[in-house]
């Protein structure tokens, strides 16, 4: 039940037409009051206005079976696996995770992703997706108990997985139901063991759903960590405030920016409410940073 990829160019053209319609005038009025902002680049909310970036899918259609069958697919469903071998007893780890690691290692060595088969002409990357790690589906009680029985299984699993990924041509994306994990120490350790950590926070069910600041979006995207590999520096983007929007054919991640405060009832009270949610914003509008105590420079 995978969504069908949009392979034709018509969708890209649609986006291009939209962008052209809202193109600003050619000459810029020189600013009189906000002249400090004159030379700043125009804030681009979404990078895809002119270029086609990434993959596009239509979730109203299904992926064709021929496409699925033409790709080599391995799956792992814990409850259908054989019981673990005795050698794995020395691993001191939750058996579900141990079996998953064994399965991944077997695929890597059998399919030659560890570089063991120099004859292979077509070098491809093994893409691994793991869903709901830490949930009870994996036999782990980290998500349902405040004092889990074996909290180190999860972190040990991630460490061994990291070793497997570093030693082979593979990449892995893992989803974790972080909102279910009561023990925050585990989340800190998981973050330290990962290269890249992104959090999605939905507005459904929270007070932000009715906040006028967020009315165009469905949730926030938090980038907790980005990889710093093979280099002293890492590629940090300018803004850290991202929100996402889910439409029928699009899941977009956009920069969150403050709309101008044009309401009739602009009063001190409403400004404080907005400032409360905007406290974390670090965009160019420094004036809105009410409530920040420290200024380093």
């Amino acid at each position, binding site marked *: 039940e995978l969504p069908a990829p949009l392979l034709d160019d018509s969708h890209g053209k649609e986006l291009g037409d939209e962008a052209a319609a809202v193109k600003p005038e050619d000459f810029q009025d020189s600013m009189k009051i906000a002249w400090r902002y004159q030379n700043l680049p125009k804030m681009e909310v979404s990078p895809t206005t002119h270029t086609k970036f990434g993959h596009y899918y239509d979730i109203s259609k299904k992926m064709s079976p021929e496409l699925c069958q033409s790709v080599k697919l391995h799956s792992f469903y814990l409850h259908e696996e054989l019981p673990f071998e005795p050698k794995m007893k020395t691993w001191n780890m939750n058996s579900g995770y141990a079996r998953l690691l064994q399965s991944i290692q077997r695929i890597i060595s059998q399919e030659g992703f560890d570089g063991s088969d120099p004859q292979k002409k077509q070098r491809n990357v093994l893409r691994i997706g793991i869903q709901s790690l830490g949930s009870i589906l994996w036999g782990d009680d980290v998500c349902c108990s405040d004092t889990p029985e074996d909290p180190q299984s999860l972190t040990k699993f991630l460490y061994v997985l990291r070793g497997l990924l570093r030693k082979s041509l593979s990449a892995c994306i893992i989803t974790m139901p972080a909102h279910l994990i009561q023990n925050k120490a585990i989340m800190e*350790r998981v973050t*330290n063991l990962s290269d890249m950590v992104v959090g999605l926070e939905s507005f459904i069910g929270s007070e932000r759903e009715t906040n006028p600041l967020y009315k165009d979006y469905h949730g926030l995207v938090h980038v907790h960590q980005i990889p710093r590999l093979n280099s*002293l520096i890492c590629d940090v983007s300018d803004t850290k405030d991202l929100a996402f929007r889910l439409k029928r054919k699009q899941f977009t991640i956009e920069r969150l920016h403050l709309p101008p405060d044009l309401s009739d009832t602009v009063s001190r009270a409403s400004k404080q409410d907005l400032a409360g949610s905007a406290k974390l914003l670090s965009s160019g509008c420094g004036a809105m940073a009410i409530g920040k105590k420290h200024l380093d420079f």
Partner: protein
Amino acid sequence: QGKFTLLRDTRTDGSFLVHHFLSFYLRAGCKVCFVALLQSFSHYNIVAQKLGVSLAAAKERGQLVFLEGLKSCLDLLFGEEEQPGQPSPLQFLSTCDLRALFDFVRVSLSAADSWKGPVLLVDDLSVLLSLGAAPVAVLDFIHYCRVCVCCQLKGNVVVLVHSNEDSEDEENELVVNSLCHHSDLILWAEGLATGFCKDVHGQIKIIKRLSLRQAAEQDLVQIYQYKIQDRNVTFFARGLSAAVL
């Protein structure tokens, strides 16, 4: 000589300090035992080359003993049965006992050779807790290493730990606080309290623990801000970054 340096980071990544110390000690001609738990050899090698040192060459000539934690872990778990008398340094994954790791360090640095002062470098200690070692075991391991490397061999020990304010990881905070009390020098890299900035990546607090050596002395604390570049890190006084001047 005989110093214990603690590298600490909060809200940011302090690994640039590890790269610095690694290339610094290798250039100074010291024998280095590097316990690299979280990244692969090639990662450190590539960065070290930008800093002017070749780790592969250092390994060839016996100056650098590199324990690649990720690789040893795979060998231990997926490899054939280990030979008796040669336990893997990452044994603690199964036995929760850090003795084999300490033996590895001791053997690597005790070998009689012509290099100047031995150095133990660990990146990073907080991972040991994630792998099943108890906080007391980690502190014991460090204590044994200090006795061996700092006192007996007159060498230096440099260790990186992560910490967070308001952290709920009590075991980690216990290890970090305990190590702070016993360190001769603490280099604490912190992300700015005001959030991310393009020109100032963080601030570094240098704490010289003079109070350890003499009762009446106060610790000397210096604070600088820094910006990390491709081959270099620039330090400057607070508020005086190049972007502001």
